[in-house]
């Protein structure tokens, strides 16, 4: 059972990492990030049950909230880029502007 959870976590994490590294669309990269966070949560929840450690469940709850905030800010920046008429493509973004 533990091996199944670990292999699922590793596969999901690296598929998310591949999405972040290989895709150029900012939105696709954001989806990859969400996948990586969910992958870590899978292991945390399972091990929390295995070792009867409720703190890990509390940590997962906090991680889910932080990931929601990250998604809001990330999507706001993507919409902002488009409003400026720029492509939401990481290769087109060269400099940080205020």
């Amino acid at each position, binding site marked *: *059972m533990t091996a199944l959870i670990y292999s699922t976590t590793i596969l999901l994490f690296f598929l998310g990492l591949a999405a972040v590294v290989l895709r150029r*669309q900012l939105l696709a990269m954001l989806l990859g990030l969400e996948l990586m966070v969910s992958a870590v949560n899978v292991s945390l929840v399972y091990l929390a049950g295995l070792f009867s450690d409720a703190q890990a469940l*509390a940590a997962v709850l*906090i991680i*889910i909230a932080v990931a929601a*905030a990250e998604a809001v800010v990330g999507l706001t920046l993507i919409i902002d880029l488009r409003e400026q008429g720029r492509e939401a493509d990481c290769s087109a973004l060269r400099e940080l502007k205020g």
Partner: protein
Amino acid sequence: MGFWALCAASGAAVVFAGLMLLQRSLYAAALCLLVVLLQVSAIFFLAGAPLLAFLQIMIYAGAVMVLVVVTIMAAPAAARRRFAALEAPWPLAAVGLLLPAAELAVFFKRQGLPAGSLGAGAGLQSSIGPILFGPYAAATEAVTLLLLLSCLALIGRVRERRKDER
């Protein structure tokens, strides 16, 4: 029964995560991620954390994915046509939809696999609250502020754009 249910949920999550990577269309990628997130919540449920499973569905599969779809819709017309092409192979889309439905059917038919049917952690989550407002109080307050600031960032952007349009 728990092990086979875990195999089904894990397998589907990994397959659709791989599909998400391969999709050219952002809509199809978002739908694949939606299936992955639903399967992750099924794993949470099997691992004995039904509260986190429901939060995963509400926050991730619900709120975040709606934001993703709105962002795709906000794309300029030329890009939108490229993003919106839904070339997802329909058999896989059917699997992505039927699997959560089948899991729900198993849940209701067998009065649900006993939460924590992986033999662990059935009663753990009742102590999440005291932990969040005890040893984790600072982290809880910080996350609350973070959520507030991210909402203010969104509202601030919308108001600035309205000012530009006037």
